[in-house]
């Protein structure tokens, strides 16, 4: 992408922040969301986050081959366990990075 295109993307993303975060602040009193849509929307954020990290955890970076035995997936699973135990985001990130780095330095994968 050219520099100009990236700046257009940045402005477009700023607009997407404004629409989603400020939309109801501006026009909320004039809109009622259908109940069904409302129910569906509840699941959109978690599904979107899962779809963002899925390929990073399950596909090899260069070849895009499916792989269960890779450092990121193992470190990811260990981090879920750590987060469930400690409920602390920063600790979990540090733990997961150390775990991932240890696997990388030991050349296990």
């Amino acid at each position, binding site marked *: 992408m050219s520099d100009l295109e990236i700046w257009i993307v940045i402005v477009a993303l700023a607009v997407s922040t404004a629409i989603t975060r400020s939309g109801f602040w501006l026009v909320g009193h004039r809109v009622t969301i259908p109940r069904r849509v409302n129910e569906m929307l509840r699941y959109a954020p978690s599904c979107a986050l899962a779809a963002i990290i899925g390929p990073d955890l399950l596909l090899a970076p260069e070849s895009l081959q499916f792989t269960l035995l890779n450092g990121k997936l193992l470190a*990811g699973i260990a981090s879920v366990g750590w987060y469930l135990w400690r409920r602390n985001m920063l600790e979990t990130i540090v733990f997961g990075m150390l775990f991932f780095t240890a696997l990388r330095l030991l050349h296990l994968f």
Partner: protein
Amino acid sequence: MNEASDVVTPDPAAWRDGVRTGTPTLFGIGAWGLVVGVAMIKSGLTLPQALGMTLLVFAGSAQLASLPLIAAGAPIWVIFTTGLVVNLRFVIFSALLAPHFRMLPWYQRLHLGFVSGDISVALFLQRYPDPAPAQGKLSYLKGLLYPNWASWQIGSIAGIFLGNVVPAEWGLGFAGTLAIICVLVPMVASRPALCGVLVAGGVSVLAAGLPYKLGLLAAVLVGMVTAMIVEEVGDKFAAKGRP
């Protein structure tokens, strides 16, 4: 004094209360900003582009989601739509928060909505679940929002400058995935949400070969529908179980 002025009159005690309530979360917010800052530089954005993105977009997960799309040269409308989808939770937050501050002028509502992040909204709604006017509401909200914004930007800008000196093979970008895991885990507390997330993750991997990263949008749609179906089936079983 009428009701509207109760809500918007500056109230230093409520402001301090908001700051105090939000303080424990600020370090985590800063770390998350740091990760996004590093990821922006590592993905190939220039220094001004990365600074512009953090200051203008102010939405970590949408920024992270956009980086591989920018690197892959996806069309702008796909990146914009992805940003909207990733930010959809804010629509719900905004629907919950906006009724509290209906009386404010539009530019203030635009501004407050724009800077309201996940954790601040959750903390505010814990304190004021009811949209009825109450004294000091606006000061309390600002006490949550502004330190949150500042710690995000400080972390993010630190990450942008740090990212340039960190070797790529350290895989620091993986910290972004780890941060998303931390946000995601509490969201899958119910069976429908868990099923939706697993299906969305699976579809995103299967559809990773689709052009323009459209696999992401497909994964979100299939995941949402799955969650709804699981919820409805669960409701039916629950209804049958009742005498």
